[in-house]
């Protein structure tokens, strides 16, 4: 390889000043854009939610008669007390599109007013577009005899509170 040829190939491989500045400038703009997007994304996601607590006191057990189903409107939860006296808590939020379903004693079903889904007392779908049965929440008893429902803990149908 003679001297001239070597010099030529060196020039071809070397990054031009313009290209270098384009990379640096473009990179800076891109970094700023991605950074801004991330910061705005974080800003849009609230850190503190002033929403009703997921764990709440539903009332004293004496207030619920046997074989009853009571809707807590504020918390959107049914407190069900069976014939034998046991308790379970069931979501009142329809699994279709989130309307509040109501207990209809005359038909013996939990019915959603929005799109006609129906559930039985156990929360299983009997009619309508709802894709899943109503979830059950954990129920415990505190020292004062108050039912404590925790909506963040979803339990199976076999979990009931015997009193």
């Amino acid at each position, binding site marked *: 390889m003679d001297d001239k040829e070597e010099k030529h190939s060196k020039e071809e491989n070397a990054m031009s000043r313009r290209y270098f500045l384009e990379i640096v400038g473009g990179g800076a703009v891109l970094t700023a854009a991605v950074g801004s997007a991330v910061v705005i994304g974080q800003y849009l*996601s609230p850190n503190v939610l002033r929403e009703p607590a997921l764990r709440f006191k539903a009332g004293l057990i004496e207030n619920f008669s046997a074989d009853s189903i009571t809707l807590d409107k504020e918390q959107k939860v049914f407190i069900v007390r069976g014939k034998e006296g046991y308790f379970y808590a069931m979501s009142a939020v329809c699994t279709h599109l*989130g309307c509040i379903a109501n207990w209809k004693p005359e038909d013996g079903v939990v019915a959603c007013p929005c799109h006609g889904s129906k559930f039985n007392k156990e929360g299983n779908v009997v009619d309508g577009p709802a894709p899943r049965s109503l979830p059950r929440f954990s129920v415990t008893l505190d020292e004062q005899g108050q039912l404590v429902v925790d909506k963040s803990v979803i339990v199976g149908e076999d979990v009931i509170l015997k009193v």
Partner: protein
Amino acid sequence: MKNALDRIVRSQVWRSIFRHGLPDSNRSRAETVFYNFFLHLHPTKVRKRSIKFTYTWGLGGMSFGLFIVLVVTGALLMLYYRPSVPQAYWDMKDLQFVVSSGTFLRNMHRWAAHAMVALVFLHMLRVFYTGSYKPPKEFNWVIGVVLFVVTILLSYTGYLLPWDQLSFWGISVGTNMIHAMPFGVGDKIAFLLLGGNIVGENALVRFYVLHCFVIPVVAIVLMAIHFWRVRKDGGV
């Protein structure tokens, strides 16, 4: 009197605004269109058949007219409406029963909104049936489709603002649909849109900002491009 009028017309201020007389040649007519900001969107020449009313039915123009009505009535409604949970519903009721012409403005905003959705849809149908989505107007069809979605979003975000039962459950159901998107994407979008897990204070403010600022700005920018392209492609 005539003298005074003459002096106004010949003043420097007047002549700085009205710079030319009426154009009297083809060349000066074309120049008038070129150099006027509001007219420059127009093509300098238009085919006779494309301004026939029964070709376009003026649907796009009427949609734009309704948008103007909505901006004006909306801006006036904003003066009495506060987007917060304790006040929103009562401010809406105040507009109906206490504010002079409040019911009229609110109803006008509502009916114009309904009409705009209908007319934009009919405009889309017309464009389809006259084959006006074909090249070279393909790009403008794409913008038009986005504008249709923007119109629907404007209508939907406005739906929450009265903060009554219909609004609340309408938005609850609508945002619950977003949860159906897979891989947790829907859950994240719904959370950001509502600013929480429930339709509450945050959701109301977010929908208000989207309805009164973000989406209208997007709509205005897209409309400007849409109209400019219509004219560059030889329409009116």
